[in-house]
């Protein structure tokens, strides 16, 4: 069973996209922990640690990704969660994608992404364990 944490860091109050993703992953047979809006990087990484998820899916629409994502990835490494697959979605300008990948994010999914592509991306990288 693949376990995923869908998290919304920062101050934007829109989680429609995050909920669509959570639901699609559930329907693909995954267990999705959803923690709600306005999460700090510390809260997100702590939740990922306690829930021992294989995938962390971040949704950011506020434009704060250049500060939030490096901080989250720093905490991921501090907590030795390097094995975790980190995905980023929301509104990420093309010019920022490379910088996001540099922090250790595995892939950036922009608006209009087919949820099937996200599911396939996860399945190809996370082994089914039971």
């Amino acid at each position, binding site marked *: *069973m693949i376990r995923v944490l869908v998290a919304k860091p920062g101050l934007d109050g829109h989680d429609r996209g995050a909920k669509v993703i*959570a*639901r699609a*992953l*559930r*329907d*693909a*047979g*995954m*267990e*999705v*922990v*959803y*923690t*709600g809006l306005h*999460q700090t990087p*510390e*809260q997100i990484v*702590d*939740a990922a*640690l*306690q*829930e*021992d998820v294989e995938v962390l899916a971040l949704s950011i629409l506020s434009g704060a990704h250049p500060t939030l994502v490096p901080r989250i990835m720093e905490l991921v490494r501090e*907590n*030795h969660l390097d094995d975790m697959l980190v995905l980023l979605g929301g509104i990420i300008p093309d010019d920022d994608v490379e910088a996001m990948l540099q922090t250790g994010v595995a892939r950036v999914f922009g608006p209009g992404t087919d949820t099937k592509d996200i599911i396939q991306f996860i399945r190809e990288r996370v082994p089914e*364990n*039971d």
Partner: protein
Amino acid sequence: MTESELIDRISQREKRAIARGLTLIERDTEEGKKLVRALFPHAGHTHIVGITGAPGVGKSTLVNSLTLALRKQGLTVGILAVDPSSPFTGGAILGDRIRMQDSVMDAGVFMRSLASRGHLGGLSRATFGAVTLLDAAGFDVVLIETVGAGQSEVEIMKLAQSTMVVLAPGLGDDIQAIKAGILEIGQIFVVNKADREGADHTARAIRGMLTLALEHPEWFPPIVKTVAETGSGLDELIDALGRHRQHLRETGKLALLREQQTDHMLELALEDLVARGVKQARQAADWRSVLEKVALGDEAAVDAAWAILEKLVRGRTHGA
């Protein structure tokens, strides 16, 4: 990480080790089973508290504020929250953390969401092992929030020492309170959202029902009114939990409960073996031919089942 390292780090309540251990238990691997076995003798000190009740009564919010209140008293808290898995895809949305954000960052708190994974009764199969782990890790209190589907959640009684049933005013409680299962499992009743109209009425209705049919006359379940959002009534609730545990200790029921847990663990393991046997038998090459014999009336279903069972046991003794 070796097993003894893992156990060592779990007993130091290291979050990462606890999280890994819970994953092993949940995946039901050989490692996970060995871990539960190794940890079981270290368990038995925690106050195991079950929280059940219909969806929307505020169980998660109550767990959050109860955790905050317990922390204020210097007690450490482990939380297991069970949500339903889809019977169709096996997937699940685990949303209990949303309401627990205030309490779960604390170093003295560990919270894990569990999907029911097809297990009925309001818990997941891994819940028993998970409680053993949190108990052995030394948490003073372990709170278990059940799925919240309603009236079939009796399994929590076999696991928890104190079970609280949470209700809210205005949710058709008069009829709900009569339904079998609700009254019998509650050792403490919580009327949450007590700032709403009808809370006194709900409390009275429960009291009335309890007076009519008291299962254990030596313990009259307290009825506590709370507003989980503000923390109102939480001191009374903690007091009620303490008194219930004291009652269990004085009457010798605490020791009995541990025996009962072991009993239930054995029962679960047996059920598990049988379920696996059924699966194996269905996949075996001769399943169709046995099926035909039964269909034609050449063999009774029960005789065929015995034959299959005997074959499975022989397979096991011959090193399978």
